[in-house]
């Protein structure tokens, strides 16, 4: 592995450094051949391309967190998958940073480079990134980023207890993708699990405020009548011989406790009396009761609710499934082909490509008749929309597919790939005649997306005639661009 990296550095790109050291202070040691130092200034994704790893100075934890969040949030796999290590003379105790990074880089300060296991691990990640890059242009949705991150690290996704998180738990990598929108983090995980890309096993359970999803809640006992928290509790006393039952204060006598009914003094508990239960008296409304009502106050939005109205959530740890591993290489359609979209009549990419080729060959052989049309519906700002859609993504995709299906004829064929969007084969339909129906599809899709999410979709529909010279691969590469 060390040799691989050496090859990367010397043969493929001699400018590649072992590591980029990022600090907001003078670290007290200078450049060497394999390390580039960067201090201060705006960071851009491109600066991470020329190094195998990033070392973040964790003397200032806030700075370190900012750098790591910037890296993990970047849409480019060369950046968000970059091995990132923390450097601190005092050692790093922050679980969130440790989870977000690839761990501490303790030997780094000695002027050396990465050695032993660190270097091996870096090599493994680099090979994974290389594999992802070889698979061509796949839309880096948050789902793909998550599965690729897990695939590159070969580890499970474990929840981290964190007071700064509204739910009390966080998944650092995902949290970076949804700043200030924590609920999307759980929705994304739910979607990934439903799609079969991750398998979850419960490790904890939380209850969240029904209004704001905050898990920081105050449970308090209140009077069932007036909801006051001011009430007193007293033991009930049952005097066996006369059957009198009342609060302990009823039994106060001048010469020790005595029964208010028969005036006999109380002797020993269990012999002539017992304390069968407790009774409470509200100091606000004088109501007598035994069971106070449990109320829950959300410490964030201050909403008061009953425990049964809280939203329960299972906190799970997740493993990448075999399907997830494959999806990290191929894109999402592998998962969706067997998912809901598949059920409503979309066909897989391979079948679609085969049908297009078949139609193309037919036109090449039989010149007469109308051309068929290959149409492509792409969404420009898919990444941004994916973030917005969260758990609704699957449902919205289904709605999109339905709109398209209903607008086309039963002889038309539809397929989908996440990196391209929807692809249509409109048989015996010239591109000039397909404009109307494709325009309607575009309008309805725009309307659907605007109703469901706040981001305006950038939808483009382009058509090509299948006239015997059409090439699907060439068209797709044109569509996705360099």
């Amino acid at each position, binding site marked *: 592995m060390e040799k691989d990296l050496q090859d990367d550095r010397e043969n493929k790109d001699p400018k590649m450094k072992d590591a980029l050291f990022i600090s907001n202070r003078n670290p007290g040691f200078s450049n060497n051949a394999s390390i580039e130092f960067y201090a201060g200034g705006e960071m851009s994704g491109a600066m991470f391309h020329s190094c195998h790893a990033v070392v973040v100075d964790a003397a200032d934890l806030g700075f370190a967190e900012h750098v790591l969040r910037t890296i993990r949030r970047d849409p480019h796999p060369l950046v968000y998958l970059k091995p990132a290590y923390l450097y601190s003379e005092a050692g790093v105790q922050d679980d969130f940073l440790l989870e977000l990074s690839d761990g501490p880089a303790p030997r780094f300060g000695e002027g050396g480079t990465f050695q032993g296991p660190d270097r091996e691990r870096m090599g493994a990640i680099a090979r994974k990134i290389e594999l992802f890059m070889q698979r061509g242009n796949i839309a880096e949705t948050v789902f793909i980023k998550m599965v690729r991150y897990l695939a590159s690290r070969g580890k499970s996704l474990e929840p981290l207890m964190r007071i700064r998180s509204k739910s009390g738990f966080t998944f650092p990598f995902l949290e970076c993708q949804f700043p200030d929108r924590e609920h999307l983090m759980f929705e994304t995980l739910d979607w990934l699990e439903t799609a079969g890309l991750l398998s979850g096993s419960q490790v904890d359970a939380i209850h969240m405020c029904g209004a704001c999803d905050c898990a920081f809640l105050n449970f308090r006992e209140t009077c069932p009548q007036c909801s006051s928290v001011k009430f007193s509790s007293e033991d009930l006393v*049952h005097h*066996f011989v006369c059957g009198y*039952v009342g609060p302990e204060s009823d039994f106060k006598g001048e010469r020790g406790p005595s029964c208010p009914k028969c005036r006999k003094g109380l002797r020993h508990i269990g012999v002539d009396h017992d304390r069968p239960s407790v009774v409470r008296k509200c100091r606000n409304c004088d109501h007598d009761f035994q069971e106070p009502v449990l109320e829950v106050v959300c410490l964030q939005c201050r909403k008061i609710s009953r425990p049964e109205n809280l939203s329960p959530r299972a906190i799970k740890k997740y493993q990448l499934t075999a399907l997830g591993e494959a999806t990290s290489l191929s894109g999402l359609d592998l998962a969706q082909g067997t998912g809901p979209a598949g059920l409503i009549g979309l066909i897989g990419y391979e079948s679609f490509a085969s049908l297009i080729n078949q139609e193309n060959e037919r036109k090449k052989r039989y010149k007469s008749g109308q051309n068929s049309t290959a149409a492509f519906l792409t969404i420009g700002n898919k990444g941004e929309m994916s973030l917005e859609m969260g758990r609704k993504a699957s449902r919205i995709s289904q709605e999109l597919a339905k709109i398209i299906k209903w607008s086309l004829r039963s002889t038309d064929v539809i397929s989908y790939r996440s990196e391209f969007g929807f692809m249509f084969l409109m048989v015996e339909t010239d591109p000039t005649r397909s404009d109307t129906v494709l325009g309607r599809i575009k309008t309805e899709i725009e309307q659907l997306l605007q109703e469901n999410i706040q981001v305006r979709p950038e939808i483009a529909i382009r058509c090509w005639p299948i006239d015997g010279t059409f090439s699907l691969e060439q068209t797709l590469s044109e569509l996705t661009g360099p």
Partner: protein
Amino acid sequence: MTDYLEDLYFFWQSIDAEKFLRLFWVFLVFDFGRFAFFQCALVLEHFLGGKQARRKRALARSLLRKENPLVSVIAPGKNEGRHIPALAESIRAQSYRNLEIIVVDDGSNDDTPMICGKLLQSGRIDKFFRNPIRGGKASAANLALRYCRGKYVLHLDADTHLGPLAIENMLCPFYEDGNIGAVAGDVRVNHPLRDLPVSLQALEYLKKISLGRRVASFLGILRIVSGAFGVFRKDVLDRIGGWDVGPGLDGDITVKFRKLGYRIAFEPAAVCYTNVPDSFRKLAVQRRRWDRSLIRFRLRKHSDILIPDANFKWGTFLAFWENIVFNLVLDLKWWIYIIDMGFNFNHLARYVLPMNYALYLVTGSVQLLAAVLLMDKEGKIRAVKLAVFLPLMPIYTGVFLRVVRTYAYFQEFFFKASYFDPWNPWKVSSQAKAAGL
């Protein structure tokens, strides 16, 4: 069979008055006298309860509505959760609205706490207290009493439900006579035609409660306000400290009210429907418990009523004697009668027994006819439907209940068996026994 009937006919023809009295002295001297007195009193009560009584009732009703006092409805019990929703529903459907419902769970080990907790949350009952360790019926009722806020306390068995005007009618007597301390309602058997033991009890309740207590109230000697359905003045209950340890605590508390000089009334227009034992075995257990209380409370605990002193009251004295004579003494006289017949007229038993049966059947029929004539519409229908069980009543009351009663008296008199009845927890009974209560 024909020969036997002919013999019976000739025997009946040949018997003279002296022999008739000798052979049927128990019926003629005791039961017919009691029956005739009862019927006369019933007719008198009916005719006296005419226009003037209706005017008095109307005035009482308007006073009640004007004051509109809070009434605390208490329902103590163990493992009665399944009945509570229907009870709460029938209370909420009452014409009288100013009510608070307090349910006490006395150590239930079924889903009663869950059911009552839900009723409390939904506001269908106002208070719910639970003692996880059973303390007995009296302690549960006293716990409810401790937290009552009403001017009147209505004690209900949890397995009852009420007619829609029951509580309003029940409260009226308090506004007719300021000296009334407690009012007993008419307790009728729920689903009276369900099975034989239930039907026989339904007939018995009709006779003993619907008509019997009506007459006793008219005569001022009513001695029991049924625990299933009775309303009490809260101030008097507080004064006497609520219920004492049972069994038979409803009769006991009525005596305590009477001792303080309060009148006890029966309100026939306040009707509740209760469940009764559905097998003879369960019925025998229940009746043994009730019958033992006669010895324990009347002859032991409250024997001072029989002794004339400064607190002597004729009504209470007569109520006591009525109870003792017609239950204990007349029970004994039956065994004497059987011995008498066995020794002296053994050869006539085949004629005397059917004759006795016929006599009691006729009196029972007349009583049922009185019920049909004097009761409300539901009572009339009930009486007519139950008429088919009349032929069994002489055996039910004359044999079954009598055997059970005699056995209960014997057990209590000689062994104080009521203290060992699991109906009360031993920790309670042992203390009551040691204190002689």
